[in-house]
């Protein structure tokens, strides 16, 4: 029941919201600075400003009328049957994607985009082990992506290694570094850990930028060899197909690992740590070892994706490994709901694929990320595609 008094109040609140919006937007949105004859001038855009303020006003009224914040809460997870369904959907999706190059929908551009999305899926699977399963917020995941990319590139360019020869070394080095770093930082509490991992990634990036004799600094490493099939190389046209299947293969492998992991004692230990560290510790789970294992596994996945990224691009530079990249992968994991790999697939396709297809959206993509992360946390902290059935269920005989 809406009385007239309610509407009056709502109107007042909308005016207030619009006024606050005016204060927020008047400088930054309404008065963009432009360069004119070498000097900075303010070139007002009142139309843009009034549109934004008007949008806030109308938005506030709509929220008041319809209650935007009352989104349906997720149902309690429906256990084994759901799980089977998602496995089925994922299998079907993967098979369809495997057949895609033989259909008329396929083009070089489509395959390239899908390969990129698959790279992010591998990354998201890796980060999911730490963030989703173990509940440790890692803001420096891009460090392992960079370690993988740079280790492979350096081994290939300076040591003449092929992709498959260098890959194990890249992954092992990432795991080793994760071990050392993890030994030091993993005892920290959740939010401190997040900031420290971020600091670690930034330190690594600064070194990549400044250690010119090894990494060639900001100019990056060029001439990275393309992947081969055993010793068989590819011409550029068929390489697209090869990279595409390689990406599917890597993702499938990592996704299988993650799914298996949840049924292994190790994965259960991860989840126990996430649910309650103290209780897990009391049940005899070695906290430090479980966290380290999760951190190292995720580092391996990151390095795998990094090496693949390097061989796909043929070029790496520190610019590809900024905090934005960590944020993007984290956004995928958050959106996916930290559960089944299917969620990761959809989230990666949504966050990486959509802006790739609609180029005009590219500029707005990061804004949408930021807003999306806030909204998901508020509406459904479990994520949009949250399907997180317990790994084990008790079957009651009736």
């Amino acid at each position, binding site marked *: 029941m809406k009385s007239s008094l309610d509407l009056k109040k709502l109107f007042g609140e909308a005016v207030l919201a619009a006024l*606050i919006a005016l*204060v*927020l937007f*008047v*400088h*930054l*949105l309404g*008065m*963009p*600075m*432009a*360069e004119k004859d070498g*000097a*900075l*001038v*303010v070139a007002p855009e009142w139309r843009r400003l009034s549109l934004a303020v008007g949008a806030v006003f109308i938005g506030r009224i709509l929220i008041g009328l319809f209650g935007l*914040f009352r989104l349906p809460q997720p149902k309690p997870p429906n256990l084994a049957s759901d799980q089977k369904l998602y496995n089925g959907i994922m299998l079907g999706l993967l098979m369809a994607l495997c057949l895609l190059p033989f259909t008329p929908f396929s083009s070089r551009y489509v395959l390239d985009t899908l390969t990129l999305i698959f790279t992010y899926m591998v990354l998201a699977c890796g980060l999911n082990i730490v963030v989703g399963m173990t*509940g440790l*917020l890692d*803001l420096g995941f891009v460090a392992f992506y960079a370690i993988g990319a740079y280790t492979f590139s350096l081994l290939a360019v300076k040591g003449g290694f092929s992709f498959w020869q260098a890959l194990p070394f890249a992954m092992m080095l990432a795991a080793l570094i994760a071990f050392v770093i993890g030994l*030091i*930082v993993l*005892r*920290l*509490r*959740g*939010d*401190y850990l*997040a*900031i*420290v991992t*971020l*600091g*670690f990634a*930034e*330190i690594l990036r*600064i*070194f990549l*930028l*400044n250690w010119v004799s090894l990494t060639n600094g900001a100019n990056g490493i060029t001439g990275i060899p393309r992947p081969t099939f055993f010793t068989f190389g590819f011409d550029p046209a068929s390489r697209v197909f090869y990279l595409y299947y390689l990406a599917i293969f890597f993702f499938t492998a990592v996704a299988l690992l993650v799914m298996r992991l949840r049924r292994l004692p190790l994965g259960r230990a991860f989840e126990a740590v996430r649910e309650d560290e*103290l209780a897990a510790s009391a049940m005899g789970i070695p906290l430090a070892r479980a966290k380290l294992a999760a951190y190292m596994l995720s580092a391996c996945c990151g390095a795998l994706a990094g090496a693949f990224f390097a061989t796909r691009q043929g070029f790496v530079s520190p610019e590809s490994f900024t*905090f*934005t990249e960590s*944020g993007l992968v*984290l956004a995928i994991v*958050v959106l996916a709901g930290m559960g089944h790999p299917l969620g990761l697939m959809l989230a990666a396709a949504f966050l990486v694929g959509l802006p790739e297809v609609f180029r005009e959206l590219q*500029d*707005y993509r*990061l*804004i949408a*990320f*930021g*807003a*999306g*992360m*806030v909204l998901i*946390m*508020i509406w459904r*902290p479990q994520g949009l595609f949250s399907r997180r059935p317990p790994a084990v269920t008790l079957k009651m005989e009736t």
Partner: protein
Amino acid sequence: MEYFLQQFINGLTLGSVYALIAIGYTMVYGIIGMINFAHGELYMIGAFVAVITLVGLSGGGVLGAPLAIFAAFLCAVAVTAAYGYVAERLAYRPLRNSSRIAPLISAIGVSVLLQNYVRLAQGPRAKPLPPLIHGQYTLMERADGFTVTLSNIQIAIFVVAAVLMIGLTLLIHKTPLGRAQRACEQDIKMAALLGIPVGRIISLTFVLGAALAAVAGVMVALYYGVVDFFIGFLAGMKAFTAAVLGGIGSLPGAMLGGILLGLIEAFWSGYVGAEYKDVAAFLILILVLLVRPQGLLGRPVADKI
């Protein structure tokens, strides 16, 4: 000696700025135990609003430099405080009772959002600002011509920072508002039971922190004469390091930590090399968290079960 003194002056300038930003981190952490990851962006927004005001007023010849600077301070503080308020209301308040991680992720979202909003609205290129506060004093001169200088803008930064810090300390310790704020810091549930409007106090904490960050932003814009949309990230990280170094949750700790971090950074770039100066801050952050997580002036906190 002369070189040392010059680095000392530069470090103090930098440190005053870090201290002002760090206060925002430490107050928010003290009261709701959350790392406001987006706090650095508020500093960036303060700097941007100031530059826009200065370019609009002073560049257009509407006002003279002193009045324009005054107007820039007012605008920057008002607008940035509004951003702090709105961010808390929309992005953090709904998460008050969730896990420790959820508000942090939400804050990262706010940070990414604000950064790219400014990038899109104002363009990605750095905005240069012609120097408005001129003049400097030569304190010492070495035989080889190296001079130790103290510029007017540096003096202005010291004075403004000192006045604000003293004012804030008085506000927290001598006024009813400050008493309510300290009560919330000690035990937010008990404070609520005793009739303190907790929600309003939390809002106020964000507004105060944002206003101080805005002042820091204005002064940096005047000091370096250039802003871009990305300055908030590093400044925020360093101010957070300063807050942790001094003991997060402790107001004098944030001031001390800020000054110390500014000095360390200045000496590091002066004697070790400027390329790795950001590494120094991150290393200090990691070391302090590992060796003395309560910081220099903080109280150790036992984990509640």
